[in-house]
């Protein structure tokens, strides 16, 4: 049986990388915010923009945690930094977070203009960039085996 020497995750718990435990939160929150923005755009029911504001806030909070942990992995391994996908994943997600923070401020406005048009556009662009950075993140794990254990079971 052959063994690979996979790029390691520096921030990990008992061999389990922390970054993938955190990233589902911003992904789901930001996609959810797009959905609730669309719902508000279509209904003008304030409940939906309130949903969006909470989703963005929670998504940003967990996104920042995920970014910190991801940055530790990034800095902690030369082999991770040598991956083009890692740069695109990290840089793209900074863009995602910056967009989401703008968007959260836009959502702090009162009533209709908290979403239409700027908030809705920012939510959509955020999700588009997220698709790209998600793809790059999956490439890092499923193609380049970042954080994958060297020991086959």
């Amino acid at each position, binding site marked *: 049986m052959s063994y690979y020497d996979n790029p390691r995750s520096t921030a990990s718990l008992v061999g389990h990388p922390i970054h993938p435990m955190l990233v589902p939160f911003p992904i789901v929150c930001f996609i959810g915010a797009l959905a609730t923005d669309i719902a508000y755009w279509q209904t*003008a*029911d*304030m*409940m939906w*923009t*309130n949903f969006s*504001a*909470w989703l963005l*806030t929670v998504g940003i909070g967990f996104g*920042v945690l995920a*970014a*910190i942990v991801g*940055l530790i992995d*990034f*800095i902690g391994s030369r082999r991770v930094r040598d991956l083009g996908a890692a*740069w695109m994943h*990290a*840089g793209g997600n*900074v*863009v995602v*977070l*910056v967009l989401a*923070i*703008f968007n*959260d*401020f*836009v*959502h*702090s*406005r*009162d*009533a*209709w*203009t*908290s979403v*239409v048009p700027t908030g809705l556009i920012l939510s959509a662009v955020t999700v588009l960039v997220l698709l790209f950075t998600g793809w790059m993140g999956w490439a890092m794990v499923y193609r380049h085996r970042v954080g994958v254990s060297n020991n086959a079971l």
Partner: protein
Amino acid sequence: MRSDPTEKAANSVRRRVAALAVAGVAAVVLTGASDGQFDVSSQIGPNPKLPEPHQYLLPPMHLAPVVGWKKGETPSVPAGLKISALATGLQHPRTVYVLPNGDVLIVQSKGPNVEPIERPKDLIMGWVESFVTSSGGSGGSQGKSNRITLVREGADGQPAQQSLFLDNLNSPFGVALVGNDLYVADTDAIMHYTYHTGDTKITGPGTVLTPLPGGPIDHHWTKSLVASPDGSKLYVGVGSNSNITENGIEAEKNRAAIWEVDRQTGAHRIFASGLRNPNGLSIQPQTKALWAVVNERDELGPDLVPDYLTSVKDGAFYGWPYSYYGQHVDPRVMPQRPDLVAKAIPPDYALSSHVAPLGLAFSTGTSLPQKYQGGAFVGEHGSWDRDRFNGYKVVYVPFTNGQPSGKAEDVVTGFLDGKGNARGRPVGVAIDKSGALLIADDVGNTVWRVTSDGGQSAPSQ
């Protein structure tokens, strides 16, 4: 407040990405920050200059933390007037009401604080508000509020006597006396009590004349009250339940309006609507017309929308929420109502933006200098959502033939300490039996009395 936590992460990744992100932040923040050198006085009078509305990522804000009055400090008045404290050590006094025998009722009140947290902004705004409404360190401010204290001026320079007139009220604000019927507008009802001249305490239980829109949100909770000239009706101000419908239009039912309440039956109708937060309801003595001061909407810029003083016409619609100052459409309201905007009329007299007028009293006495007779005093609680402070003073608007006839001028100032702190904030104003001007100073926990300098004898401090 505008620093961005992600900038740190961006720097550590790749310079170019970081620079791009920072440039983006700067660009958006800067487009929002265009206060410039707007001439505030261009918004005082009947035809205010209205700049284009701006929407922000973070609206301009400037708060005045409360420091209270140190011993011996008072607000400032111009030459010809003098000011002294009528009562100190109060708990958030908001309304002063003068009874026919000269006794003064001081309504001390705190908001019901029942507004739910609907979004992250509500958490932050609640925290921000706690800075500027918390009572100052100077006078017994942590005590029990939501009560009315009666003050009787001492004879021949004796100190004024205070007695607890009415207690355990529900965020009271307005008071009106018709004969022996005393009405107190709690935030959720007009209460009726029986009063006899000379009473220093109400002993009988109150009864509800008319329930008013109170909770569950109760955003603008102050219910201003005045009786019609013939005493048959009461007018009560019911403020909106939001800044600009962000709690849903259904929360605004019967709000942002002045109600006319029948004193015999308690039945009510909407007398005028589209008034975001009407306060200081008063009858103009010559014309017998109803007047009010109104707090207009926030977050369209430091110089929008001017708060105003207006006569209130029966059946009129003044725009809120769909439009401001006549027919300027507010883009934040959806669905829009062009049919209502077409009906909206502009108010009479702008006081400039975000001054937060909460008190109005027509100058009916003859003891103040001639120049302060016949017009109206307005208590301006002061701004929070603009870069430079506006308000925090009592102004005088001259009137001729029942209409404003000149620029408002400052009468009582010095509520700010010059270092960005508030020593006090004026709210309700009234003219006492001697013709002096009374001012409720809520965070200063004081009622001030302004008299002619050298004319009337003022009570000692």
